[in-house]
């Protein structure tokens, strides 16, 4: 299965919380009127200039093994190497919200509209993440309709450049799924263009396979340890925040 998905722009509209987080504004803060206005203007521009598109391609475990090996630059020990081999389903994905938003951000900065440009950048980043969620749900629904999803199963996504998967892995990922068909190109530095694009693999399997300790050597370089939240969300666990804890 390989499918190009047109994502309705209203569905990709990000949550206020996700935007403000990237602006460094903590949740629960009473926003000044001018920041509220700025946020509204940025969301309106996002809705006007974004063109979200996604592509999702089934991939077998051996095929993904080859994609994942990439240029042979992954960390020797890494979590995904163990996880994907136990997966029930794998799918490569790529999504973009297009080039127009990035151009609009540039224009705003050139006109000294720094706050609006920066807010639009945050909206666009959060909107790109939301678009991936939509593609993820779409794929999950397809599997669910085939009766392949049970309550003990879960889905997490991983991207080159994170958790020991070297960013050069983009090369093989592009060779397999051809995100060029939705307008994403890969530069020599493995950077995707348009900048507001995300690619990676969606892994579906028993929830247990996703557990790992964030004690790999490269975890020390990680500034977010967001894997903890992602795994916790999968199990819907409620536990005190423990940056380096075992899930």
């Amino acid at each position, binding site marked *: 299965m390989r499918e190009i998905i047109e994502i309705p722009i209203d569905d990709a509209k990000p949550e206020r919380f996700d935007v403000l987080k990237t*602006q*460094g*504004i903590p949740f629960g*803060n009473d926003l*000044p009127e*001018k*920041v509220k206005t*700025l946020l509204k203007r940025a969301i309106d521009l996002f809705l006007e200039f974004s063109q979200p598109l996604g592509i999702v391609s089934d991939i077998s475990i051996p095929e993904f093994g080859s994609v994942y090996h990439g240029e042979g630059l992954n960390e020797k020990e890494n979590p995904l190497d163990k996880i994907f081999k136990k997966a029930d389903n794998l799918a490569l994905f790529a999504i973009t919200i297009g080039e127009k938003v990035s151009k609009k*951000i540039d224009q705003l*900065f050139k006109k*000294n*509209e*720094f*706050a609006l440009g*920066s*807010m639009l*950048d945050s909206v666009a980043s959060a909107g790109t993440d939301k678009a991936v969620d939509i593609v993820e749900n779409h794929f999950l629904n397809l599997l669910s309709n085939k009766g392949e999803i049970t309550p003990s199963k879960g889905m997490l996504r991983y991207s080159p*450049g994170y958790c020991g998967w070297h*960013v*050069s892995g983009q090369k093989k990922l592009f060779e397999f799924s051809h995100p060029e068909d939705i307008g994403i190109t890969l*530069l*020599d*530095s*493995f*950077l995707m*263009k348009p*900048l507001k694009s995300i690619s990676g693999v969606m892994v579906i399997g028993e929830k247990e396979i996703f557990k790992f300790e964030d004690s790999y050597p490269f975890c020390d*370089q990680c*500034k977010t340890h967001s894997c903890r939240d992602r795994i916790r969300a999968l199990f819907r666990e409620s536990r005190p925040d423990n940056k380096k804890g075992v899930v």
Partner: protein
Amino acid sequence: MDILKEISECLQQGDDQKVFAFTKQAIEEKVPPKEILECGLIGGMNIIGEKYRAFEIFLPDVLMAAKAMYAGMDLLKPLFIKEGIPTVGKVVIGTVQGDLHDLGKNLVGIMLKGAGFEVIDLGNNVPPERFVETAKKEGAYVIGMSALLTTTMPVMKRVVDLVKEEGLSGRIKIIIGGAPVTEEFAQKIGADAYAYDSVDAVESVKKLLKKP
């Protein structure tokens, strides 16, 4: 209220139109341009920086203040050129070769200009040699580099090495930043400073140049 205080207050409120109007008025009242800059505009931006570091305000407030700063600066710039008043210092900035992310770098440029520095922005995808050549040609004392990809971080080391090879280590200081960049990485490659964000970058550059 003292007109310089008015400028500073309006700048802190992010009111670019009032900053423009008061700066114009101050020029007309023959307030020395350097005083308008240092006490009104930079004075206001310094308070903004302090409030930001104390989490009293957030990025949008800082950037609205920066826009107001630019409104005043646009009026002062021709006077500085006419009177030959030097800037606080020159800084060359850019996103390293292979990387096109420039939002963080742009914010650093905005904040440095807001602190009175002259900023030479080389844009993104900048080859190592261009950083060094430009710094030499322009007489800049600081090179600021940004990277958002781990694959492009080695370019930063190449620039540090080039500066050393040319015997400019003491004269040209190097500051780096970007999402994957850390203080440890900066030390490892021999950079002079690491900046966590744009406000931090201004403080670090001031320290490097021993500016108050």
